């Protein structure tokens, strides 16, 4: 079962943090089809957060078709996000490593690398939308 955590300083709203943690776990294969998610009561008792926050996160995941609530039983994963893409991770990570070492050789420090990645990532995302 997945265990949620919250980063109060991240600037990302708590409900979105929960949504992302489930998606992340699905992508990494930590959660699979049929796995149960913790109940709303369990999550709020652990994190000391508003129950509506958890309900909102679960509703969004349900809307995306990733989980389904079975009344009286619990909430279960209905789809996995890993399948084909997980197999590609190894190769992509290898390429990314090589890119990172080239960036370092070129004299970029951690912050510059992160900035370059994020600006490129955003620019590419914007081009995709346009």
């Amino acid at each position, binding site marked *: 079962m997945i265990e949620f955590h*919250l980063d*109060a300083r991240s*600037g990302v*709203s*708590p409900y979105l943090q929960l949504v992302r943690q489930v998606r992340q776990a699905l992508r990494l294969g930590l959660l699979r089809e049929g796995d149960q998610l913790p109940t*709303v*009561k369990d999550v*709020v*008792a*652990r*994190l*000391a*957060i*508003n*129950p*509506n*926050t*958890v309900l909102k996160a679960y509703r969004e995941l349900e809307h995306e078709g990733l989980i389904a609530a079975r009344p009286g039983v619990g909430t279960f994963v209905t789809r996995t996000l890993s399948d084909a893409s997980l197999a590609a991770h190894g190769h992509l990570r290898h390429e990314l490593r090589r890119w990172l070492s080239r960036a370092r050789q070129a004299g970029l420090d951690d912050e510059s690398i992160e900035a370059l990645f994020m600006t490129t990532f955003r620019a590419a995302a914007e081009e995709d939308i346009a």
Partner: protein
Amino acid sequence: MTTLLRTRELGKRYRRRWALRDCTLDIPAGRIVGLVGPNGAGKSTLLNIAAGQLAPSAGSIEVLGGHPASGPAQLAKVGFVAQDTPAYAALTVADHLRLGARLNPRWDAAAARNRIERVGLDPAQRTGTLSGGQRAQLALTLGVAKRPELLILDEPVAAVDPLARREFLQGLMEAAAEYELSVLLSSHLVTDVERVCDYLVVLVDSHVRVAGDVDELLSSHHRLTGPRRDPGTLPAGQHVVSVSHTERQTTLLLRAESPIHDPAWTVSRVGLEDLVLAYLSPPTAAGRPALEVLR
């Protein structure tokens, strides 16, 4: 039954001084409401009126559709944990549970026993020797076992250490989820409010400065920085909450009903803590800040 709290120009006067004035609120049921403000702003007064412990001097109030002091049926619907979670020092934990069972028609004895055991309280211990955190847990247990629809808590964790505070909030949120409780709590710790509350009321100088759904408040408030300019020239629909100038730059925190398109401003998000602090600080020279209730 859709309203947790509905007040119209509610006020409470002690001799010449108004402890609470012109308080108009509409809070839907099922919410976890955070009431914040400096000491003496009127938080305890509002909570005591809502719990039926104090009679208002002006205006009207409905709690869960009824009048706070109207009778046993209303009192059974509302649980109240007073400031500093008081207990009868000479009585034991078990005595308090027996008292709760005698005084409350909907008392849930099994839930009370389970909670006491889970938080590790000794039923035979006199409450005068409990730590602040333990006493808060006892008060929460009594409040929850009463099985109210609304639990009102006045600064429940102001005097306890961070670990006990977190444990208290965990228990409170668990109860809120399990029994679909509405909660109205006052606190001066914005980080706690941010974590557990979905509705915020800011009280300053006996007046409601701002009230609304937390997500809506966060999405309607912005921090603007840009070349120095007179905030009086802002378009309609933008209400300045706080303003500061340097020689060349102006920084504003404002509430806007629609997105800000003026390219002169750099617009950024405002966290709940900054938002609350802006409302707590004295009104700016830029004119009357937003006083109306957000819906």
